[in-house]
């Protein structure tokens, strides 16, 4: 029996991980599957992948895909710092971070913002369910005002929208999606990985156990009823030919740094994903109308990523040896003499 393999010669199974320990029906498990599909189809080499996470249900998921890749499940809300450091040590790695709404918008908000500010080359996926699952159902900071907890408590605070925060900071890639919308999530994951810089992907991912009831704005039914995609997304990797067959004026193409393309097909009003002001507006309008706006909100392919700004070599810093790093004997002697 012949097995289908991708461009690096690996079957789909090579991108699987350990069995999930999350609840049956958890949105996060769907995202794990979307991740496996995206990584397989992109032909990411597992040894170059670094799976990073913080603490929480979402942060467990890196164990559930690409088992042969290195992973780092760090401390709560601090994944951006670990990711930043690991990337500096070896900028050949593909940094893929998975976080949750508590990990990102509460305890980790500072690091989230500073990672964006530096434009660290990584994909940062927020598995966003508006609740603290592992500690049994407290509201998180992304829960909407007026959203109702399972036991009836009403959220009295404004939500922190990770996409709006990212846009305000000038993040170079901002997208939102829904775990149940694989058609949209998979190309967005691919585009996020191909993008050079910080790519934020906020995926609403319902918690079947604590936040999937009437009155919640992060339930399957609410999201299905209120999702409003701004454009159909497809992704054409650098190793495939661009072949677009649409009516003129109905699509927008974004060329990414590695030669890949994002193709956006207009649905309703035209959204220009290179216009940051328009992206903020479309989120605010959706919110005012009670819609969940999904799709690629904003992309800037020109912004310098952190490692480039830092002017470190393409060759991983971890591989530099004594000759690269120590002062020469002559320099050392000269330098010491200057202290006399």
């Amino acid at each position, binding site marked *: 029996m012949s097995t289908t393999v991708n461009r690096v010669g690996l079957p789909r199974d090579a991108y699987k991980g350990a069995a999930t320990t999350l609840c049956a029906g958890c949105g996060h498990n769907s995202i794990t599957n979307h991740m496996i599909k995206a990584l397989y189809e992109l032909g990411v080499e597992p040894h170059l992948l670094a799976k990073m996470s913080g603490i929480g249900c979402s942060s467990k998921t890196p164990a559930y895909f690409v088992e042969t*890749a290195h992973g780092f499940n760090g401390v709560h809300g601090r994944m951006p710092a670990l990711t930043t450091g690991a990337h500096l040590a070896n900028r050949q790695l593909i940094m893929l971070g998975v976080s949750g709404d508590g990990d990102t918008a509460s305890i980790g908000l500072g690091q989230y913002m500073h990672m964006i500010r530096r434009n660290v080359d990584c994909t940062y996926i927020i598995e966003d369910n508006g609740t603290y699952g592992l500690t049994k159902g407290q509201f998180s900071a992304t829960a909407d005002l007026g959203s109702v907890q399972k036991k009836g408590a009403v959220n009295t605070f404004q939500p922190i929208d990770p996409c709006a925060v990212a846009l305000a900071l000038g993040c170079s890639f901002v997208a939102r999606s829904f775990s149940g919308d694989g058609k949209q999530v998979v190309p967005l994951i691919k585009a996020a990985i191909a993008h050079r810089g910080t790519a934020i992907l906020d995926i609403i991912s319902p918690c079947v156990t604590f936040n999937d009831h009437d009155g919640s704005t992060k339930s399957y039914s609410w999201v299905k009823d209120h999702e409003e995609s701004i454009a159909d997304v497809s992704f054409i990797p650098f190793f495939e030919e661009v072949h677009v067959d649409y009516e003129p004026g109905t699509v927008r193409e974004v060329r990414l740094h590695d030669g890949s393309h994002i193709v956006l097909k207009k649905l309703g009003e035209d959204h220009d994903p290179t216009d940051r002001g328009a992206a903020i507006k479309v989120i605010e309008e959706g919110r005012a109308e009670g819609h969940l706006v999904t799709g690629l909100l904003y992309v800037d392919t020109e912004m310098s990523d952190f490692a480039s700004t830092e002017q470190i070599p393409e060759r991983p810093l971890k591989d530099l040896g004594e000759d690269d790093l120590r002062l020469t004997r002559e320099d050392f002697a000269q330098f010491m003499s200057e202290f006399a």
Partner: protein
Amino acid sequence: MTDPIVNDLTIQAATVNGSGSQTANLVLTRAIFHMGIPVAPKNVFPSNIEGLPTWYQLRITPEGHMARSDKVDVLVAFNVATWREDLKTVRQGGVVVHEEAFSTADARTDVTYYAVPFAKLAKSKIQSDTLRKQLANMIYVGVVAGVLGIPWESIEHAVRRQFLAKPKAVPVNLDAIKVGFDYWQDNFSKQDPYRLQPMTGVVEGKVLVEGNQAAALGALMGGVTVVAWYPITPSSSLCEYVIAYSDRFRTGSNNGEKRISVVQAEDELAAVGMAIGAGWAGARAMTSTSGPGISLMAEFSGLAYYAEVPVVIFDIQRIGPSTGLPTRTSQGDLAFVYTLSHGDTKHLVLLPGTVEECYEFARDAFDYSDRFQTPVFVLSDLDLGMNLWMTPEFKYPEKPFDRGKVLTKDDLEKLAGDWGRYRDVDGDGVTFRTLPGTDHPAAGYFTRGSGHDEMARYTEGADAYARNMDRLTRKLETARHALPGPVIDESGQKVGLIAFGSTHAAVVEAREAVSVDYLRVRALPLSDDVARFVARHERVYIVEQNRDGQLFDLVRLALPPELVDRVRSIRHYNGQPIPAAAIIEPLSSQEMVPA
């Protein structure tokens, strides 16, 4: 007139922070050092940008004592706000060089006054309006040079050395010093016994280096490539020196490419997190901080300990608790750092006692950290880190980096992929690791701060947990024998002293007054030599710069019960570097052991 006092005096310059006085102080220091006379400067500065009082103490002894002295022989009174109080600190028969406008009408009469119209001289003799405030301090250098007899060629040398990077500044500064020098010659005759005379025998082959400079150089020689930090006194200068030295020695001349990344993080949590991320991915990585930052690094330090990630963390100690006195020294973080983070966390801690050790331990910390796959803390302090110390020139390392047990692709092929991240193959508690990016299907593993088994799989199993914790104990025990051992100087005395870090300088001096054996601790966990040293003495005094006797506690824990009563504690904790007197006095009163 009394007999001359030659090359044995302490100068205290009382000035205003932010006025440029530090440059003048350094020129004076370098000029005296150039005469072959040993110098030991201590800068006592406020947590302030401009305006508050600051003092610079320059101790000069023919023997080369490096500890602070609390006796002032020559006061330079430049600060009207503190001048009355400063005057009280001067030893009877001492010298006071002061601004003429400060009235001495009701002042003490047992000192020699030299009143100099500094303000008027600055106004009339210094042409540049923009530099006048800065250069006014230089006038006092000239006056002191006159009083003490510092040759002009030493002044010239010092100014050139001070402005190595700004040769244009040399003539204006020399001119300002000349103003003071000439004023002295024209207006005073020598009334006091203090003199400086060129000498030989102590300073040859020595240089003046700050501990933070030494540590920065050590880190570069140790191969650091990722530095993440958050500014905090007294640690900031360490990373700033790393930046400056990297601009010079780690930057490609043709393309500006940097063989290091130095990141100013958003806080200390992120700083240590970035360093740990980099250490995990295989770079030699560090952060540097002080007490409040160490508190913030507790969580991540536990992760690095438990997940076994190499990282080097410098703690340039200042005095706490809390914000404490940000610009004063202490050895108060010892116990906290040793077990930093919750649970059964325990770390390797290096304790440099000289600037030469700041260099060597900074360099070697990266080897220890890679070898034992764990955080290594380097505990310096404000006194060691920010003051200039006389030191022999540092040695060029002869050994290559020790990157520890890292399996490459080839290794994994030979093992046919059969390895486990936390499997203790060698029985020393130190396991093998792979780095992300290793092109072998068996290379990957999952690093976590939660419970894990030998294969790095998640587990809450009781046996697996205890097994792993026991192995970590074994690893620490292996490391304990590999870390720098105590330095012991012993001649069969009944009484011994134990100290660590910058307290060393005061102990060296104290031992000229009291006959005691000496053991200097250089690392935690403690070496077995400490208990053996106690066993060989009737009584052992543990000297340290904190309130609670933190090393005293650690030593007692390491002693068998019958030896515990032999140790006593001497503690100094006012934020000023410990003077020898703080050791001699309690020892003399309890032991009567004159030299």
